[in-house]
Every structure is written in structure tokens, then in C-alpha cells.
């Protein structure tokens, strides 16, 4: 039997600063190699928290449960170690880094991963070649790499650049935190094509989204509905369509009511 790519068991998470609030209340989720899972849920359900906990942001405390990545305890690893081991978080709000060119940034990231794997640094020529190939695959203009990280990027450019980074780093688990939000249909298609081009039977994806729209382009194997920190329903891709039609109301969620924003 193959080891699952990601196995989340009974995960309970609180905010370090506000331990009285439990954000994730017993999540179970298993992603096998090659699978695409989607987590859907209303605002404030804990979707983004889950993404950040997986990628190693330290504002959270795991109070119960465990996260296994390729059978290893992910919680024991720092954010950079997780990334180097193959976990990639595509940020909902990618961060601008003034004065640092995308090229310089990615060079640091690629070589950090290579050092982690005990490999030598890539020379400039090989790096450029690698970047060019991935830029073509993900359909981002190579010129983007000459600009500073996310500085002055449009919303669509930022999201495409995230997917491009995932391809450059050759990550095995891609967590996309609302990568569809704020995108027009063309940008959405480019992002989706990029992700689909990386599906190879081994790589796994966790798509976090509010809307079904993304899932028409990246078709998931499993869909989970996250409400108030718990997965209350799981199903196939048809579940997303169901949600699209009826909203989250059948799950007792009133979307118009104000929700605590934890994302």
C-alpha cells in the first residue's frame, strides 16, 4: 500500500494569540499521490488557516491531532524545511518584496532546496534554462522574472507567478489558497492550465476555494465542505456543483450573516 502524500488526522488548531478560539476542530483528510482535493467553505470556516498550518506559519498552535507528509510528521518541520521537502503554498495574497528581483528570489529558493537535498547549487546558465522551460510550461512571460517579486504585479500576474514558482520548485504537494479569487476568466484559465500541466499521477493538490468556478477547470477527485472548522461533507466533483446550486445554506450556514474572519 502506498503511503499517502498527505494525511491529516483529527487536527485541532487554535490561534496562538487567541487560544480561546478553536479554528480547526478535528479535521481528517487524506490525499493520495496524484489526487486533487478541494476544500470548499464559506468565509471564516478555517480554509486559509488550514493552508497556513500546512505550510508552517507559526501563528497557530496544533492542540491535537497530526499531519503526516509522505509519512513524516510535518508539524516537526519549519516552514522552509516543509517547502524544501515539497510542500508549496500558493498564497491568497502574494507578498511584494521591494528591491528583490524575482530571479534572485527564485534562485535563492531553488538553491535552498538543492542544499536541502544535498545537491550542488545550480550555475546561472542552468538556472536560466530551468526558469525558461517552466515559464513556457506555465505560460508566464520570462520578462516577469526581471521584475521585483510581486511588485506592481496585477492580481492575475501574482497568481500566475505563484503557480510558476510551484513549477520551478517542482513541489509535490500544491496547496492553492483561493488562487481563483479576483481573477477574470482568462487569468483563471491560465492558472488552471498551469496546474493541470503539473498533474502527473504523483503530485497532489489541495485547492482551497469559495466557488465552484475553479473546479470546472481543475477537476478534483474529492471535494470537502469545511464549515466552522470541521469537514461536514465529502464527495466527488459533483458535490461542488451541488454547492454552486444551493450554496452553503443546506449546511446551516447563513452566508449573509457576518462571520468571524480568520483567514
Amino acid at each position: 500500500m502506498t503511503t499517502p502524500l498527505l494525511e491529516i488526522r483529527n487536527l485541532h488548531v487554535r490561534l496562538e494569540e487567541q487560544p480561546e478560539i478553536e479554528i480547526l476542530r478535528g479535521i481528517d483528510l487524506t490525499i493520495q499521490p496524484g489526487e486533487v482535493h478541494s476544500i470548499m467553505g464559506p468565509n471564516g470556516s478555517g480554509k486559509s488557516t488550514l493552508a497556513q498550518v500546512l505550510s508552517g506559519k507559526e501563528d497557530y498552535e496544533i492542540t491535537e491531532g497530526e499531519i503526516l507528509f509522505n509519512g513524516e510528521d510535518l508539524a516537526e518541520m519549519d516552514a522552509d524545511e516543509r517547502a524544501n521537502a515539497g510542500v508549496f503554498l500558493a498564497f491568497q495574497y502574494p507578498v511584494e518584496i521591494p528591491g528583490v528581483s524575482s530571479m534572485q528570489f527564485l534562485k535563492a529558493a531553488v538553491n535552498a532546496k538543492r542544499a536541502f537535498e544535498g545537491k550542488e547549487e545550480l550555475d546561472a546558465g542552468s538556472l536560466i534554462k530551468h526558469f525558461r522551460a517552466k515559464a513556457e510550461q506555465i505560460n508566464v512571460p520570462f520578462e516577469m522574472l526581471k521584475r521585483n517579486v510581486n511588485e506592481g504585479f496585477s492580481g492575475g500576474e501574482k497568481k500566475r507567478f505563484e503557480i510558476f514558482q510551484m513549477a520551478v520548485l517542482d513541489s509535490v504537494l500544491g496547496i492553492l489558497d483561493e488562487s481563483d479569487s479576483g481573477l477574470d476568466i482568462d487569468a483563471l484559465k491560465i492558472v488552471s492550465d498551469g496546474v493541470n500541466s503539473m498533474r502527473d499521477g504523483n503530485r497532489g493538490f489541495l485547492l482551497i476555494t469559495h466557488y465552484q468556478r475553479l473546479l470546472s477547470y481543475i477537476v478534483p477527485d474529492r471535494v470537502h465542505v469545511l464549515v466552522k472548522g470541521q469537514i461536514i461533507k465529502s464527495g466527488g466533483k459533483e458535490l461542488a456543483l451541488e454547492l454552486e446550486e444551493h450554496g452553503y445554506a443546506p449546511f446551516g450556514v447563513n452566508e449573509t450573516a457576518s462571520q468571524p474572519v480568520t483567514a
Partner: protein
Amino acid sequence: MTTTEEVAQIAESRREYTAGFVTDIEQEFAPPGLDESTVRFISAKKDEPEWLLEWRLKAFRHWQTMDEPDWVFLPYGYPPIDYQAISYYAAPKKGPESLDEVDPAILETYAKLGIPLSEQKVLLGIEDGTPAEAREAEGRKVAVDAVFDSVSIKTTFQDELAAAGVIFCSISEAVKEHPELVKKYLGSVIPYSDNYFATLNSAVFSDGSFVYIPKGVKCPMELSTYFRINARNTGQFERTLIIADEGAEVSYLEGCTAPMRDENQLHAACVELVALGNAKIKYSTIQNWYPGDENGKGGIYNFVTKRGICKGDDSHISWTQVETGSAITWKYPSVILRGDRSKGEFYSVALTNLRQQADTGTKMIHIGKDTKSTIISKGISAGEGHNTYRGLVQMNSSASNAHNFTQCDSILIGDQCGAHTFPYVDIRNATATAEHEASTTKVAEDQMFYCTARGISEEDALSLLVNGFCKEVFSELPMEFAVEANKLLAVSLEGSVG
């Protein structure tokens, strides 16, 4: 995670100062102490003409009437300097005639520091992620004047430079070989009576570099001086004089290191730049004097006077400094914009970590019409370091349409450090304009997380962010020194994150 408490805790714990070794060679010292006989001793050692001795003595007598200034902003202060405990002259006993005769221990010192004293091209490994196609792989020639304690050890590429008419030698040599130039310009930008430390320098300066670029000549290579303090209990008082005649151009680099020692050492240098009509001087400094330890023990007092004059019309002087070392840095590389349409620039990165203190900035004195000055200052404070920008923009009544742009940015790493800004603006001409922008930021946790989420360690992430913060200044440095500055900054910040 980089919480500020953790940062502060670890910021001081580690720091590698790789230039902190001592070279064991036989040296000749002046006995500690300072009186007229010391001045005469130094002058005699250098076999100087009478006029120079007189100038030194005039300076010394004036210095005796002065008080050490105390207006510098240094939260930790510093103990009084005992000027009688310092030795004002230290020189290796073996005086070399050629490179073959330079003490091998000294050659090794410079080799260890990565300074080529043999006349070879400097081959560069560029590591800043610049695309391969944008790089020049070819090596470049850099002529070096190496100053070891009080004397110049070796100046490279002199013959090749002489063929272009460029004079590049130690100032001692210039006094002998080109007295008319030295006499004309020495003290013409920084008078012997200028300020306490410059006056002291005028009395006891031991060596330094001299550059003259003749009319219309673009210096065929980068010139550089590398200052090394080695001896214990000595001060280093070098004097550099650079003259670019009409239409001449030169780019000059200065580097500095010193051994790690528990006692403080005084470095009171003077640098004078003269740009005649249409001339251009670019002066870059990478200052990495020993900063002292985490308790503030030891380190160099870097009390330096640097000033240039844009004497002719359309002349241009540009200062770029990367200051990462020294226990205390107290200096203001300045430009007097006398020629019409002349330009002055100051680009600075000053980093204080541990218990380092820096009060640095610039003075731009606009006299000519349509003169322009640009000031870009980036202060980085980590550990318990305090970083002060102090700058004067003065526009005299004659400076019609003068313009200044000032940008002062500070970044704080941890919560035990400080950043301070004292801008002075003095405008006496209604057509002159000055713009000032300033910002102070903390290293943003979301930026740090974005980097670590890509596999970049916190330490590398911090150095990446700080390098980005300094980019406008580093882009002013010659390529190989920009790389050097990047590395130096990374080393200086080591241990600043947990």
C-alpha cells in the same frame, strides 16, 4: 518565527568577523604620545619638505586649542580618548622596493582579505542572480594601493596608469614626486583648521593615496585603496587626495578592515576630492572595520572627514558608502557644489548590529546655479545598534534653481535597536527646491514568511530582504563591489534571526 523578542535574543549571539586576524610582523613604532616632536618624527620619517612640516605644525598648534566635539548622537557614548596613549606611527620594518620584497606575511594578509596585490585581472563570480546574458564574464583590472597601518605597502599597475597620464601613488610618494600638485590641493577642500579630527589628521597623517587624472582622461581602470590596521594601540590617520582635472573621470574604491581587539582604536582619516570643470569622481567605500563584540567591547572609532568640491562647471562627485563595521561611525561625506550645473550624490548603507553606533550622513552645499544633489540613505539597525542619519542641505543665495532630493529609509530588525534622523535644510534662495522623503519600517513578518514558505532559511530571507532594501545604493557600486557588499551585509546580519 521571527518574533521581535527572539530576534533580539539571538541578534547578538553570533557574528563572524573574518577579517579579525592579526599579522605577526616586525614593526617600527613611534612611542605613544603626541607633542610637536611626534609631528616632527613623522615628517622626518617621511623625509618631507619644510612646507609640509610647517603645515603639520600649524595644524597641531591649532588642534591644541580645540575641544573634542560632543554633538554626535551616540546613546551608549564612548569613554574619553586618551590621545597620549596612542602611537601615531607604525610601519613594517622591511620597506619593500617591489612586490617581491613585500613581507610575505603582509602579502598573505591581503590575500586572505581577497585583495589582489599582484597585477592580475580580478575574476568575478557574480552571485546576485543576474541573468547570464546580462553579465560580463571578463575579468577587470583594479589598481590597488595597500596601506598597512601607517604606510603604503604597494601600489599596483602604476606603469600602465602612468602611460595614460594618471598618477596613482601613496601620498608620501606624491609629496616627493609631485609637490606642486600636493601643495596646491592639500587642505584646499578640508582646511587644516576644519574640525577636531581633521585637524589632528593634518598634524599626524602618515600615509594614504594620491590620484591625479589629467585633462580629458578617463581613468582606464578602477582605482582602489585598501586600508588595514594591524598594530595594537596605534591610530590610523591616512589622507587621500584625488584630483580630476577638466573633463577627467575616475572611479575610486576604498576598503577597510582591522583585527579583533578588546581595546578601541582610532581611525581619523581625511579624504579630499577636487573635480574641475566637467570632471567626474565616483568614490565608493566599503567599510568593515572591526565592530567590537556583543558587549560593545573593542572596535574601531571611525571619525573621518570626507569632502569633495565640484570646483568647475558641470562637474560631478558621487559618494557611495557601505558602512558595516566600526564600533562608532561618525562621518559625513560631503560635496561643495561650486561650479554651475554641478552634481553631488550621496548613496549610503549603514548597518549597526551588536552595540554599534553610527551617526552618518552628508552635507550638500549648493553655491553654483542649477546645481543638483541627491541623497539616498539606508539605515539598518539590528541587535542593540543605533543608527542615525544626519544630513545638511544648504542652498546659498547664489544657488539659483538648485535642487536637492533626499530619501532616508530606516529598517529595524528586533526591538532593542534604534533609528534616528536629523535632517537640516538651509535654503537662502527662493528658486531653490528641496525634497525630503523618509520612512522607518520593521522587517515585515509576512515577507519573511513568504520567503521561508519558498524554502529560504530565515537568515537568508533576512539578508535577501535587506539587500532589496539597499538596492538603490548597491546599484551605484561597481559590480564586483556590489557583490562584496551583499555578502558583507549577510555576514554582518548573521544571527539576527532566531
